[in-house]
């Protein structure tokens, strides 16, 4: 059984508790009956610690602003510096590490997230400017443990090798398939997704996955 990160039930993570999260997931795989003491202790800390939830703490540190970000349908309170980009806030402050940092300068697309349904490069977007927006990351695509049709199609088509660009590819693909103005031909999909570079060169399978997901989404999937 695979667990998918659900910010609705596993929110409040910080960069520190991301490690806790990984440990927790690792521990759950060991099975509850034989959960070692260290893992039990880790799980307890992850559940109880208020760290990462600035709403419970005092005023923001000097130079930081306390903002609300709507990420995957959940309002999150986070303290950010003016120069912090959405990519770093999502990964390091909210613990949503599915969004990847590739080039960090808008040349690779690994950091693609959806803002109000549109794909953007989160590495070039100041987090403070996104307070009124609806942000969706790769973690926000699944519903009740069911993969989004695009995720499922990437899985079935083996549409990756190293996997580093994959979350960005999937987010772009979701935006492409939700945009009626983008043509349905292979060429139109390639053009619309040309901002997502795959160093492994898995483009053939990525394209096949996107076109397959199109059918699944039309079929009400």
């Amino acid at each position, binding site marked *: 059984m695979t667990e998918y990160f659900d910010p609705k039930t596993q929110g409040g993570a910080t960069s520190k508790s991301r490690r806790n999260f990984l440990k927790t997931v690792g521990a759950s795989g060991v099975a509850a009956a034989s959960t070692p003491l260290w893992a039990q202790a880790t799980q307890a800390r992850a559940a109880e610690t208020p760290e990462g939830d600035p709403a419970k703490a005092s005023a923001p540190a000097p130079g930081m602003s306390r903002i609300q970000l709507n990420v995957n349908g959940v309002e999150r309170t986070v303290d950010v510096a003016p*120069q912090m980009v959405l990519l770093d806030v999502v990964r390091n402050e909210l613990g949503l590490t599915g969004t990847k940092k590739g080039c960090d300068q808008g040349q690779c697309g690994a950091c693609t997230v959806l803002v109000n349904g549109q*794909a953007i490069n989160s590495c070039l977007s100041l987090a403070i400017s996104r307070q009124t927006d609806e942000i969706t990351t790769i973690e926000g695509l699944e519903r009740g443990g069911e993969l989004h049709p695009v995720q499922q199609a990437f899985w079935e088509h083996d549409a990756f090798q190293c996997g580093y660009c994959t979350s960005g590819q999937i987010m*772009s693909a979701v935006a492409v398939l939700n945009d009626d103005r983008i043509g349905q031909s292979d060429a139109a999909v390639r053009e619309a997704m040309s901002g997502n570079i795959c160093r492994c060169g898995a483009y053939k399978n990525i394209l096949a996955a996107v076109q397959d997901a199109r059918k699944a989404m039309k079929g009400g999937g």
Partner: protein
Amino acid sequence: MQSFELIRPESVKDAIGAQSERSAFIGGGTTLVDLMKLGVMQPDHVVDTNRLGLDEIEALDDGRLKIGARVSNSRLAIDARVERDYPVLSQALLSGASTGLRNMATTAGNVMQRTRCPYFRDPAKPCNKREPGTGCSAMDGINRNHAVLGTSEHCIATHPSDMCVAMAAIGATVVVEGRKGTREIPFEDFHLLPGDHPEREHDLRSDELITHVVLDAPLEGAVSTYLKLRDRASYEFALASCAAIVTLEGTKVTAARIALGGVATKPWRAVDAEAALVGEEATAKMFEQVALLAFQRAMPLEHNAFKVELGQQAIARALRDAVQQASQGEHQ
């Protein structure tokens, strides 16, 4: 990235009031955030334009189209009036960057886009544009991507925009607002040649903000096309590009607008080629002849001489493609 104070005004007046010599406006951030990360731009204050409105596209009574500074490149490209009256602009926009970047990038931000010269982008290298007086690394460096038109001994960096090339061909006005009021700058005068001061890239004072770009009324019955030639088929800057707009009477050219990208230090109007084409027969041979005129004063360097021929071919082919639409009855 060096820290800065972020100011988020809610009116144009406050935005202008917040502006200083050491500040920068931010729109989509696709140029500024990138260059701040690289340490190329280091403003003390960043003034966020995202709460200023300025996101409307408005048809004016005189036939012109007024575009708000914050209209995204994606939205402008698919606006029905742009697609109908200025398809060359729509094509140029869609040929630039990627879907994600176009969703972020704004109209004014694209006008203010900085060069992609790798020496400009590397603070460890001398660059007259970044640090006046330090010299030009590209002049004797890897200058394959650099300009052959409008260069000076101090700078050969190309202007990277596709959108601006289409706007140069269409004709436009940049509307700016400053502490002393509003000003209208003809598009062809907005970007400056490097000359002795490559650090001065545009005719915008330190307190001024671009609020709109107004496109000239479309030429009646014109046909047009944007052709972009580059190292890969998508998501790449132009080695040479051409926006061509032509009107015809029978087989004769009655008006021509030719603008070039990827080969010049600013969005480049090929006025000699245009003048030579008007009144002539719209033939492939004639297009090739006028294309030569556009590069008469080209100053190629060690690695970019190919751009002279590539640019000439871009003009000839763009004109041919545009006129072909006319013969097929596909106006605009």
